[in-house]
């Protein structure tokens, strides 16, 4: 298989780059950065697909990546395809249109897969260097070298990795490897497990021992309890013996007192108490009686004045009123004084007023408040009225004065001029104020237009005249011109058509003539005409000859003519012969050259027909020419009226356009001129009207000399002056009028004020009469009277008030005296003659004494009641005490009080004995051990007191022994119990078992890996050996000669030999078999060449049995000197006879070397250098 074309459509830096490749050695030269590595990857991608993560997607996105190509098999099968990136259906047809089956390329690649391709059919500098290294590391071992060169790129590393891993996993006698260690750990865990597992049997024996000890302990405890009980009982008896005897004797004493009445314990106290209470009660009774007697005596000695006490309220009231009575008497004097003073003041005021009225009668003279207000209002009004009067008079005076001042000015004359007309004219004029400017600009426009027009007119060809003539000129319309132009164009086209036909005929004719000439080349072709002529000539000769034979000799002239016609001159006979021969010859030729003749005849016919057609054409040409002539004269006729000799319609169309433009200019010119005229007329008329009006109103200036604008300004100025004067005059008149009005108004005001004053005078007179004043009294007078009158009435009121209070005091005094006298008469007639003040005081003193007496009596009555109560109590206590004593007697079953103390004493003794018995009983109770004392006493008295101690000692010894035995049993039981408790159902052992499983699992994996690794290693070794056996012969032979060639003869070849360990190794043979060199003794470059030799040999060997596959070389010659590089290139050139070689490089000297090699080689043209394919960023 070979690659015919590689298309880097979109890959790495490439876009639409196609490389044509040939069989043989292709050197792909590109500078650095040309994308060499992308191109190498592209070839790989084309064959085996684009890798999932390619570095070549930096320009084109992944799904746009494309690499295509054309590959050809040795049998000629051809495939054009494109590879895209993806998982499935990545191979597509050459147009990248339809997918191809993914395995379409497989038959081209033979069965070479991706890995094999890259390891066998590709080599780069790095791989070469690694190969060289491997040669060294493999110490030249033949098998390994061959194996590695066969496509295993890192054989030595692989071997070491496999051996190393196996060693890490297991060694028969070592501790560190994983499996050895795992086995040891597992052993350890087994021991641990055993120690942690609790045994069932141990558990059972422990449980049994525990149960045994428990039973023992329980039995011993029972015995112990019994012994302790006995010892305790004996000790009790021993302790109780003394108390028991006392108990018995007391019981017998008690027996003796069995009849005595047992009295309550407090009988002695009760008896004494009753006696004491009796005596106390007696003495209290006596006391109370004595006190009662004394109180009764005191009561009789007290007297209470009951009548006086009945008047208690009245007497107290009288005494209280005494105080205010004295105060009122003092006040009365002051009030009397005040009254008199007020009356004195009133009389004084009356005098001031000059009135003689009596004080008591004054009331009727009081002026009411209403009247007073009226008077005061009038007083104020008086001043207002007077002011009004004065103001009116002042106004009138001022107005009169102004009227006098205005009088002169108003008399001045007014200009009576009518400026109405002038104003109208001025308005019109100012509307056309800048008419002069307009005129100027229009004139300029007019002038420039005229200049333009005249120059245009002068430029108009074919015609001369003025604008007026121009306007009158009658020229054909544009439509007419176009009509003529069209027909001219039509005619021209026809002429052109005919001419081209004619020239066609000419060409055909020429061709015909050429054909004819060709036909007659060297020899004319005889025609029928020629034959006719020749025959005619011959016949003529024959006629002549016949005639001569017939004896009619023709003219010699005829004969010589004939001869001269036939052959110039000569004899008739020869001429006749010639003519006959000629005619015959023509016939012969005609017959012989019938084809040529026919051809010639046909050519002649064609020529004739051509001539005819030509004639027809010429005829039509003439017709057209005639038509054109007519047309031209018609054309000229159209222009004749305008006196113009026309050019062609086309030109005249242009002329007509210019003419129309000129007409437009003429129109504009006349329009402009009329505008100018109108403007000037208007200005003149306005000026005239203005001057007339102005001189009419007497503006005497040199109007003619002024411009229109100045005139307007002058007029406006004049009109303004007139207007101002008139306005001033109107103002004056208005003011005059106003002054007159003011005077009238003032008069009216004056009259009104005077009327009001008179009215006021009447009212005033009535009002002041009340004040006893004259009607003409001044307001101030009235005010003074009013003030005095006010004060007078105030004083009078004061006097009355005091008078009323004095009267009230007198009345109260009178009542008090009456009451006091009445009271004295009633309760103390002895006081009747005294003063009321004394009466009141005396009564009060007596009342106070009476109260004291009554109080004392009440107190004594109360004391008597108390004493009576005390007496009753004492009597009751006495009877209680007696009752108590009576009760005690009954209780003690005594007849008299005297027996009572003895009974009480016996009772006390009995009680005391009973207490003692109880005491002893309780003292004995602890010793009784739950029995009654009686039972215990019986039991104790049965025991021999002397044997008590020895028996107790006996029991105590038993107890001690039993306790020890029981404790022993308990300890043993506890021990077993806790030992059993250690069996807690815990999972320690189970956890170790689980741990063991983890280890086992790990160990299983490690063991498996070890087995696989070891077997893989052994397989590798065996394969290497077998491969060596198989490949050694042919491959080594090839490699040997390649090595000699690659080293340029420095080595003769390779030899196999055995090293110290008996392995077969490769050695380099120096020329002449003198020296064999170990690989380690070779230079680095030589080892590289050795590796290359092996690689190339392997390839060649492979190609012997397989379809060729292109060999891709990527700059491997970098470290070779020029000689060896040449040698290598030569080897590659040789290899390229077998398969296509693609040699990528970016070193131009290699290209040069390659060319050198090719030149000196006899291998034919198998080197192709491909440049310019690089892709430059």
């Amino acid at each position, binding site marked *: 298989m070979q690659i015919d074309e590689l298309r880097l459509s979109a890959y790495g830096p490439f876009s639409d780059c196609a490389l044509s490749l040939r069989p043989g050695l292709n050197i792909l030269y590109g500078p650095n950065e040309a994308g060499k590595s992308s191109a190498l990857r592209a070839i790989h991608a084309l064959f085996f697909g684009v890798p999932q993560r390619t570095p070549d997607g930096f320009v084109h996105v992944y799904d746009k990546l494309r690499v295509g190509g054309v590959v050809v098999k040795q049998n000629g099968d051809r495939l054009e395809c494109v590879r895209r990136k993806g998982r499935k259906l990545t191979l597509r047809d050459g147009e990248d249109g339809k997918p191809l089956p993914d395995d379409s390329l497989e038959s081209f690649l033979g*069965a070479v897969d991706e890995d094999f391709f890259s390891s066998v059919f590709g080599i780069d500098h790095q791989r070469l260097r690694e190969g060289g290294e491997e040669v060294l590391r493999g110490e030249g071992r033949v098998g390994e070298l061959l194996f590695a060169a066969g496509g295993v790129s890192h054989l030595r590393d692989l071997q070491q990795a496999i051996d190393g891993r196996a060693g890490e996993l297991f060694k028969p006698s070592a501790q560190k490897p994983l499996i050895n260690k795992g086995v040891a750990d597992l052993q350890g865990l087994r021991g641990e497990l055993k120690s942690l597992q609790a045994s069932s049997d141990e558990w059972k024996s422990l449980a049994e021992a525990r149960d045994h000890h428990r039973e023992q302990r329980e039995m011993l405890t029972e015995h112990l309890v019994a012994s302790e009980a006995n010892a305790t009982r004996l000790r009790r008896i021993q302790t109780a013996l003394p108390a028991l005897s006392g108990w018995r004797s007391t019981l017998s004493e008690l027996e003796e007192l069995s009849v005595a009445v047992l009295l309550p314990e407090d009988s002695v106290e009760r008896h004494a108490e009753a006696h004491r209470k009796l005596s106390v009660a007696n003495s209290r009774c006596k006391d109370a009686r004595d006190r009662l007697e004394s109180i009764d005596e005191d009561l009789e000695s007290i007297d209470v004045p009951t009548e006086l006490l009945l008047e208690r309220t009245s007497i107290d009231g009288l005494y209280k009123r005494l105080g205010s009575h004295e105060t009122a008497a003092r006040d009365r004097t002051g009030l009397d004084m005040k009254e008199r003073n007020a009356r004195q003041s009133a009389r004084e005021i009356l005098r001031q007023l000059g009135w003689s009225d009596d004080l008591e009668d004054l009331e009727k003279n009081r002026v009411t408040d209403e009247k007073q207000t009226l008077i005061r209002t009038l007083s104020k009004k008086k001043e207002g009225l007077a002011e009004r009067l004065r103001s009116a008079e002042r106004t009138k005076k001022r107005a009169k004065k102004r009227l006098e001042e205005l009088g002169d000015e108003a008399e001045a004359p007014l200009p009576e001029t009518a400026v109405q007309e002038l104003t109208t004219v001025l308005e019109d004029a100012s509307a056309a104020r800048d008419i002069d400017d307009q005129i100027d600009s229009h004139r300029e426009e007019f002038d420039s237009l005229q200049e333009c027009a005249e120059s245009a007119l002068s430029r108009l060809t074919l015609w001369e005249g003025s604008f007026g003539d121009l306007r009158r000129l009658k020229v054909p319309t544009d439509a007419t011109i176009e009509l003529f132009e069209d027909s001219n164009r039509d005619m021209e086209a026809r002429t052109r058509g005919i001419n081209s036909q004619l020239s066609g005929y000419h060409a055909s004719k020429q061709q015909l003539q050429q054909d004819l000439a060709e036909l007659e080349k060297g020899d004319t072709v005889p025609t029928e005409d020629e034959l006719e002529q020749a025959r005619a000539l011959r016949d003529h000769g024959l006629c002549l000859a016949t005639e001569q034979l017939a004896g009619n000799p023709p003219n010699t002239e005829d004969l010589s003519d004939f001869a001269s016609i036939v052959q110039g001159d000569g004899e008739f006979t020869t001429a006749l012969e010639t003519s006959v021969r000629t005619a015959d010859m023509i016939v012969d030729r005609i017959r012989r050259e019938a084809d040529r003749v026919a051809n010639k005849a046909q050519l002649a016919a064609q020529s004739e027909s051509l001539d005819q057609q030509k004639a027809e054409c010429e005829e039509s040409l003439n017709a057209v020419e005639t038509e054109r002539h007519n047309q031209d004269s018609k054309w000229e006729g159209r222009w004749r009226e305008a006196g113009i000799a026309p050019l062609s319609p086309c030109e005249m169309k242009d002329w007509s356009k210019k003419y129309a433009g000129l007409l437009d200019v003429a129109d504009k010119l006349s329009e402009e001129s009329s505008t100018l005229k109108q403007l000037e007329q208007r200005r003149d008329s306005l000026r005239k009207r203005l001057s007339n009006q102005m001189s009419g109103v007497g503006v005497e200036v040199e109007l003619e000399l002024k411009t229109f604008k100045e005139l307007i300004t002058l007029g406006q100025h004049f009109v303004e002056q007139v207007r101002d004067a008139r306005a001033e005059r109107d103002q004056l008149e208005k003011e005059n009028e106003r002054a007159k009005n003011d005077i009238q108004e003032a008069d009216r005001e004056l009259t009104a004020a005077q009327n009001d004053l008179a009215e006021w005078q009447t009212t005033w007179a009535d009002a002041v009469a009340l004040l006893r004043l004259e009607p003409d009294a001044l307001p101030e007078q009235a005010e003074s009277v009013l003030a005095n009158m006010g004060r007078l009435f105030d004083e009078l009121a004061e006097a009355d008030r005091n008078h009323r209070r004095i009267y009230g005091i007198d009345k109260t005094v009178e009542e008090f005296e009456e009451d006091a006298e009445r009271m004295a008469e009633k309760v103390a007639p002895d006081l009747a003659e005294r003063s009321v003040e004394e009466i009141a005081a005396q009564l009060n003193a007596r009342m106070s004494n009476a109260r004291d007496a009554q109080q004392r009596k009440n107190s004594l009555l109360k004391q008597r009641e108390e004493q009576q109560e005390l007496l009753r109590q004492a009597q009751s206590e006495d009877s209680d005490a007696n009752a108590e004593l009576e009760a005690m007697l009954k209780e003690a079953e005594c007849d008299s009080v005297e027996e009572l103390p003895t009974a009480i004493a016996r009772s006390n003794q009995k009680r005391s004995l009973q207490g003692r018995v109880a005491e002893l009983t309780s003292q004995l109770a602890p010793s009784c051990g739950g029995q009654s004392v009686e039972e215990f006493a019986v039991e104790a008295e049965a025991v021999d007191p002397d044997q008590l101690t020895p028996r107790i000692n006996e029991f105590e010894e038993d107890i001690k022994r039993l306790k020890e035995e029981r404790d022993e049993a308990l300890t043993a039981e506890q021990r077993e119990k806790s030992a059993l408790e250690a069996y807690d*159902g815990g999972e320690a*052992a189970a956890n170790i078992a689980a741990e063991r499983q983890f280890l086992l699992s790990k160990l299983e994996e490690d063991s498996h890996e070890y087995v696989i690794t*070891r077997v893989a290693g052994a397989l590798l070794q065996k394969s290497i050996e*077998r491969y060596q056996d198989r490949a050694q012969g042919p491959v080594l032979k090839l490699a040997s000669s390649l090595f000699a060639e690659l080293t340029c003869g420095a080595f003769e070849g390779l030899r196999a030999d055995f090293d110290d360990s008996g392995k077969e190794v490769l050695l380099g043979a120096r020329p002449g078999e003198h020296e064999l060199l170990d690989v380690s003794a070779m230079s680095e470059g030589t080892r590289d060449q050795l590796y290359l030799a092996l690689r190339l040999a392997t390839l060649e060997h492979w190609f012997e049995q397989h379809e060729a596959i292109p060999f891709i070389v990527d700059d491997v010659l970098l470290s070779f000197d020029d000689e060896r590089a040449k040698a290598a290139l030569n080897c590659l050139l040789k290899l390229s006879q077998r398969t296509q070689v693609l040699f990528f490089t970016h070193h131009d000297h290699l290209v040069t070397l390659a060319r050198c090699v090719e030149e000196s080689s006899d291998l034919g043209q198998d080197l192709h250098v491909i440049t310019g394919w690089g892709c430059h960023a």
Partner: protein
Amino acid sequence: MFTFLHAADIHLDSPLQGLDKYDGAPVEEIRGATRQALRNLVTTAIEEEVAFVVIAGDLYDGDWRDFNTGLFFVQQMVRLKQAGIPVFGVTGNHDAANRITRQLPLPENVTFFSTKEPETVHLKELDVALHGQSYAEQCTTTDLAKHYPAPVGGCFNIGVLHTSMSGREGHGSYAPCSEDCLRSAGYDYWALGHIHQREVIEGPPIIAYPGNIQGRHIRETGPKGCLIVRVDNAGVATTEFTPLDVLRWEMLQVDVRDAFEKGEILEHAAEALRETVEKADGRLLSIRVQLVGKTALSGMLNADLRQFTEDFRALALDVGSGNLWIEKVKNGTELPSEKGPHSATGEGPFAEVDAVVRELVELPNPGEDLGVDFGDLERKLPSELSEVVKSSDPEWWRRVLREAESHLVARMRE
């Protein structure tokens, strides 16, 4: 109407097998899994307020010696006693072989049927009769069921039996009996034990294996637990499975066909793992991952499956948030190409390896020819691992050679 709990094959303290303790594995969480499962059983019985519990044999592993295991069983039975729940059981082949069984003092709520002859316990208040016979010795190969007593009239009759019935795969044949024999006994429910895979044959009578309560290795996958049997007034029973397991074993097949990179395989697997983890309701999972499908990465996996397994476990840490144990990763993938890896290179090194292996597998003792001797290793390894290296077995050699070849070829291509 009443409810009872039927369990069997508790195998208390039987260790979990085949787990390689790697960094980040939930070692502590799976510790004591069988014990926790038994606790769960007791808790379930109490919560369901069952009338009684039936245990159809195999409390412990036959060769397990730690008496603490028995005591733990007793502790749990005491919990049932406190709840007033009686327990009826038979011993199985494992128990018969174990000393613990004979020594263990059981609380009075626990009754094991006699080993000498079939017995009947009549629970009068429930109208229930339980029939059963324990194993006297491990190798009980007679048909015990044949001699079971006749059913008690008017009662719900339960037969308790540890049996392999008529041959269940993967379990030793003990007390064999036929299904027909059980059917014809006239009982209402056969509470069986011995087979670790749950199986309920609908009745009447219902013949049921509840399976073991906690899976212990990758051959015991899926939910494990007990059966809650509800018997209605008409004496019709229905069973309901209740999971008790702490750690669940699952086999996860991950199809990685067309994967181009290791990362993609991991992504595929993460997805599958995530689904499995979600289904487990937060339970601990032990998963064996079986990669299948055709992929170009098959070689890479062959070359270093252990490294890949480590990567995978790191991923599982993330996905399973500490509840996931990747037991093993197995490579069952194949190369995509039909023609195999070396046909191209009939003369090359790869073809040589293939040829060598082809020759070796035909030999009776390839180790000798290869110069490989595993005798030392075989002697060192403990008996549990006797299956791992069997250099006298040509079949073993065939497997090893094929695997070693894949491994070698993959590494040669690296």
